[in-house]
């Protein structure tokens, strides 16, 4: 599995972090990603509304993953409303574990950083280097 990119979307739908980790997908200008992240945020809300039948015991939620022909995206929603979007190659295995690790790095390097303002773009070299180590390791494997 290759990780193509990671976005972090704040609970208001703003893109606060995006990074590309492979050159399979063409690089995009930040403004494009910003727009797409906003769209994804909206889609997430609508998809929950379209639920045709509730599975007992499973809370109704929005978009969790989407697939194209050669790659896919996985959306992870934290209890506080922050979304992590991972773009990855197919087939994917161990994505949930990876997203949990990303969440852990986020809570350590971003939320415990006094110089970070919640809901604002993430500007932390520690966050980036830890992600690079994690995702670089996944991509190299």
């Amino acid at each position, binding site marked *: 599995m290759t990780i193509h990119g990671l976005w972090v979307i704040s609970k208001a739908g703003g893109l606060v972090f995006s990074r590309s980790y492979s050159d399979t997908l063409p690089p995009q200008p930040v403004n494009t990603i910003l727009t797409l992240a906003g769209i994804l945020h909206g889609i997430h809300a609508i998809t929950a509304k379209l639920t045709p039948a509730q599975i007992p015991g499973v809370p109704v939620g929005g978009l969790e993953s989407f697939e194209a022909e050669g790659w896919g995206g996985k959306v992870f929603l934290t209890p506080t409303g922050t979304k992590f979007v991972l773009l990855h190659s197919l087939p994917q295995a161990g994505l949930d*574990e990876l997203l*949990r690790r990303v969440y852990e790095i986020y809570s350590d390097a971003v939320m*415990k*950083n006094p110089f970070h303002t919640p809901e604002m773009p993430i500007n932390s070299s520690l966050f980036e280097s830890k992600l690079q180590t994690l995702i670089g390791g996944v991509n190299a494997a």
Partner: protein
Amino acid sequence: MSQSVGYSSTPPSSSSRFSQPSVSSLSSPPTSLYSNPQHPSSSSSSSINTINNANSNPNRRESVRSSIQPSSLQQQLFGSSSNTNISGGGGGGSQYQPILDRSLNKSKGSEIALSAWAFMFAEIISYSQSRVDSVTDLEKRLSSLGYEAGQRILSLLLLRNTQTSNLKDPKREHRLIPILQFVHTQIYKYVFGKPADGLERGSDALDEYMIILNESPLTQFISVPKDMSDLSCEAFTAGMVEAVLDGLDVPARVTAHWVGDRYPEHPQRTVILIKLDQKVMDREEALGK
């Protein structure tokens, strides 16, 4: 203050800060609240997993939140006779005791979660940051906070050392090198759970010593923005070291410097620079070898 700085890498085995067993994660020092797998994997059997998890494994965040009642922290710190059911926060499973009544000698079980400390320190820094104009002022502020902590840590450690070794006349270092070693080993071990990674003498000046820490638990989550690259939040540690040296009558000017850019394998490496007072150098010379 000294209690909160204390940090050990080994979780207290059986101590539970609150009565519910599920909260034991609070008293162990995980780097993150979410280190354990909570969410089911989305493989083919995900729906079954979800149901099981939801029933057998209540959401940890939920349980943590529900057990921190508004009064429980107060009770911990200041004591309250009304509720004796809450098991001891300090000793492993002992009866509840207000923090001031606890034995000073007992170090086991008095550690606090690293996450809790990290969040508090982050708040301290952003609070201080909103009340200063410059990086130098911010470091000064952090340093003075560290100084407060250092004074108490020194007293506590000296007391504990005296009582545990059960000496008739307690030993107190008076020569420079043993004092620095005491800081490097004992103080750091108490505060950070491990001794410092190095103690060096400055190459050009005789009155300069350096204590080196490759990765400080104190500031390991902090990433300083580029426009403040001079800032080292280890100023807190510097203040603490200064207080300890002061307390041992070795006045010195202590500052913290980030040198991670020169050590790619330790991007957070920090040097605590100790510039000794001339008085100390004179005394050392007088005492001779």
